[in-house]
């Protein structure tokens, strides 16, 4: 029977139990079982063991013990992070979509790592020379698949997802008379901590590129692509111009692209909201959140929320959102058939 309870009885404590069990205890338990299994096979393993494979066969070798404990260590850190991130559910006891994704990912990763590492150790039992160790590829795929099944199950077992929309201040009243034309626009850009994080990401990508170029491996092309993609993402996402005028609500990036326009005829309502970038959108830039919400999120604080006629909501975080929203409201009023 389906568990249908009124929302008020879904309390934060019971949510937390499920969060800890599904996103924390279960992943760690899977990793512990995998570790015990691998340890029990330790006497039958070659020394060193194969720890890395390419398409042709084993190409990386190392001692067994760090390899055996790696999945447990990674899983413990990741699931601790996922649980800490979700420690405070919403007042209704529900989780934000980002919290749910993170918790399900924690379980998925535990299964994937557990499968891949345990299989690669199991395949090396009784092998005298690690160079002849069989390929672990198929097990990796199987682990990813099994992890996905469990993650989907976890998704439905976790408390329901909810998009939060905190009302901010009222849109400012903007008076528009007769045939007057108004145009409001404002630039909004990334600043502070997120900018620092982005800078760090670029440095890491750059560092990876340099290291891989120096070590002359096949990774050069891949790291160059990563660098270009990260660069493009930053350039197209860190600065936006938001405007409200006769053409509707428009947001466009530094080069006039990407661009998003909602014509006045497709706007159902306009509100000023309070935006929490990490909690509501899981980061910065052009983001998608669950529940038909997307937006351009560059800073915490006030934002303009436009509800489209199809029910989808588009949010842009921008200073002086009250005036921008007020202009949209005035334009809608001016446009309305009398």
């Amino acid at each position, binding site marked *: 029977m389906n568990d249908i309870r009124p929302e008020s009885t879904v309390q934060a404590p019971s949510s937390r139990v499920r969060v800890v069990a599904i996103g924390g205890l279960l992943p760690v338990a899977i990793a512990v079982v995998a570790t015990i299994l691998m340890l029990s096979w330790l006497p039958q393993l070659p020394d060193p063991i194969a720890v890395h494979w390419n398409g042709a066969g084993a190409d990386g070798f190392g001692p067994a013990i760090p390899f055996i404990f790696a999945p447990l260590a990674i899983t413990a850190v990741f699931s601790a992070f996922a649980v800490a991130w979700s420690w405070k559910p919403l007042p209704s006891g529900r989780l934000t979509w980002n919290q749910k994704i993170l918790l399900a990912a924690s379980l998925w990763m535990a299964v994937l790592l557990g499968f891949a590492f345990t299989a690669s150790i199991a395949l090396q039992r009784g092998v005298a020379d690690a160079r002849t160790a069989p390929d672990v590829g198929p097990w990796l795929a199987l682990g990813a698949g099994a992890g996905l099944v469990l993650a989907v199950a976890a998704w439905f077992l976790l408390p329901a997802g909810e998009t939060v929309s905190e009302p901010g201040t009222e849109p400012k009243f903007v008076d528009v*008379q007769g045939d007057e*034309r108004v145009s409001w626009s*404002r630039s909004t850009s990334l600043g502070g901590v997120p900018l620092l994080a982005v800078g760090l990401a670029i440095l890491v990508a750059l560092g990876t590129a340099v290291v891989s170029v120096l070590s002359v491996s096949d990774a050069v092309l891949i790291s160059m692509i990563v660098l270009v993609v990260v660069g493009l993402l930053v350039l197209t996402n860190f600065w936006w*111009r938001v405007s409200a*005028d*006769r053409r509707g609500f428009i947001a466009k990036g530094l080069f006039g692209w990407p661009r998003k326009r909602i014509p006045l005829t497709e706007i159902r309502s306009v509100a000023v909201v309070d935006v929490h970038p990490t909690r509501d959108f899981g980061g910065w830039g052009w983001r998608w959140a669950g529940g038909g919400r997307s937006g351009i999120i560059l800073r915490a604080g006030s934002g303009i929320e436009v509800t489209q006629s199809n029910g989808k909501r588009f949010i842009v975080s921008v200073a002086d959102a009250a005036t921008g929203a007020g202009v949209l409201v005035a334009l809608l009023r001016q446009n309305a058939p009398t």
Partner: protein
Amino acid sequence: MLVRIDPASGVAIFDQIAGSLRASAIAGTLAIGERLPSARELAASLDINVHTVLRAYQLLRDEGLIELRPGRGAIVTGRLAGDYDALNSAVANVIQEARKLNIAPPALAALIRETYQ
């Protein structure tokens, strides 16, 4: 930045745009360093000729409020001389009083214009 024009007002459009931007600067919503939309962008936004916007921008440049950089648009570089706090609160008072008496903005504007001369 809020620009407002009324084609029926009889005041030249470029003058109205410049006036709007000056008002934004006085009210403090146009900060130094803020990039104004390009003339082409603002013209499309208001459905007017791009040269009209350029004329307004050139006027404001000559007043030292903005700087025009080829290819980079207009950037707010200066502020109008003076301390506008008292003026801003006086304007707020006038508008509050006008709302109480149901005086529409054009009538209020006309009143100010005539008293000013």
